[in-house]
């Protein structure tokens, strides 16, 4: 840099008009030589800024900061509650019971419209994904007080473990109570079944009679019968609405139709009763209805028709191919 250039840049600098690049050039310039003349304000200023640019807090401090997000109480305030929290975090077992008491809830309400999906972070660290046409409300004071939530529709929960504060989900007259686990709960007002698919944890489930549902299993509660109707392996497509992935492994065509109907929110009818016992294997990423039907039609030798009201599949020769 020439004397003249330097003079122009310095003028610009004190006017507050230099760009970051120009300031870098100035900084590099003053860094090049060790000024013996301590009265040079420019040298002193840039030397000071440079010394502060590399200033870092110590490693002990960094772990103090990281502790904030790992659910631990920071070192400064460590106490017995911290031990209880860690113990709770290690508890993988969760219990789900049906709850019959109505609750007063203050309205922290979130809702999704048709075709809309979103995730929400609750103040306690629990994450909830809402499927289309779903409505949830949760209490004020969720962070430290009781964890109560009301659900209408379908949602996937990753509940932050806290064995001192059970997580309750009310679905109309009944509710689920968990300590810390992940699961999908479907409870649309238009449907007669409440379906629970457990991903991780062990879950107690029921009203009068209770059953234990382990991770990887599904329980279906029938509202008119007021009872658990079936216990089966978890449906791999229970969370397809969230993962945008449909997987069928040797699945009965009747079940495939149910999953497609849920995913595309369309009625899917198998016109030929014999075809209900056909099996289908295949997986689809970000599935499109026409694409899925084309593959099924080709694999099982079936015809399909996409109509206004829904989809109709027909054909009885699936076993021949």
């Amino acid at each position, binding site marked *: 840099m020439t004397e003249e250039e330097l003079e122009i840049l310095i003028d610009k600098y004190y006017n*507050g008009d230099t760009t970051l690049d120009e300031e870098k050039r100035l900084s590099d310039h003053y860094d090049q030589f060790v000024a013996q003349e301590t*009265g040079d*304000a420019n040298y002193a*200023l840039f030397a*000071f800024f440079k010394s*502060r*640019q590399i200033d870092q*807090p110590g490693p002990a401090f960094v772990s103090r900061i990281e502790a904030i*997000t790992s659910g631990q109480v*920071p070192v400064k305030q460590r106490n017995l509650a911290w031990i209880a929290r860690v113990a709770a975090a290690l508890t993988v077992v969760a219990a789900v019971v049906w709850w019959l008491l109505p609750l007063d809830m203050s309205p922290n309400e979130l809702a999704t419209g048709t075709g809309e999906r979103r995730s929400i972070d609750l103040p306690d660290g629990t994450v909830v994904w809402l499927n289309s046409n779903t409505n949830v409300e949760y209490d004020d004071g969720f962070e430290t007080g009781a964890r109560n939530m009301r659900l209408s529709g379908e949602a996937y929960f990753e509940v932050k473990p806290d064995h001192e504060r059970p997580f309750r989900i009310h679905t109309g007259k009944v509710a689920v109570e968990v300590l810390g686990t992940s699961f999908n709960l479907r409870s649309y007002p238009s449907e007669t079944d409440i379906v629970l698919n457990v991903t991780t944890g062990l879950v107690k489930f029921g009203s009068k009679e209770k059953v234990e549902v382990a991770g990887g299993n599904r329980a279906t509660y029938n509202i008119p019968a007021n009872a658990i109707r079936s216990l089966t392996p978890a449906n791999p497509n229970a969370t397809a609405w969230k993962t945008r992935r449909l997987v069928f492994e040797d699945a009965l065509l009747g079940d495939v139709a149910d999953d497609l109907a849920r995913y595309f929110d369309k009625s899917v009818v198998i016109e030929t009763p014999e075809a209900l016992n056909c099996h289908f294997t295949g997986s689809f990423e970000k599935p499109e209805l026409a694409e899925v039907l084309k593959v099924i039609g080709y694999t099982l030798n079936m015809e399909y028709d996409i109509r206004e009201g829904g989809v109709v599949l027909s054909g009885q020769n699936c076993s021949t191919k």
Partner: protein
Amino acid sequence: MRPEEFQNRVLPLHAGLYRFARSLLNHREEAEDCVQEVMTKLWSKKNTLSHVRDLKAYCFQIMRNHCLDILRKKKMDLKDIDTGIPSDSDVHTEAEMTDKLAIVQRLISRLPEPQRTVIHLRSIEAWEMNEIAEVTGTTVEHARVILSRARLALRQAYQTIYAND
């Protein structure tokens, strides 16, 4: 905001927040405590952070308010005991006082607050002026004026010290 997102986007700001607090408070340990307090505050409201337009500016804004509160309380304490001792306790000894870097630090600590914030974010963190204006809540043009005043004040004060030697 999900915990992973907080860990990826907010936690990495801790070193910058620490430097900022240190510049405003002139105290290492106090600056570290401030970062811990501000991070804890941000973590507790992480579910609303996704809606923040400029996350970095927002975090620095919170840190600035936090430090200004502390300085306000300190000023009142100082008034109570009526000493004229400045609070730049990083400067411990006479020997350090003669060091030119310590002099610059001391001069910066005597600047009015908006000037300290602007000169720190510009000269140490190398922020663009529009980002700085987000933190100070001023227009970009006004932030530029503040910056220019701070630089001129520092140069003049520094040269005065050496002219008197």
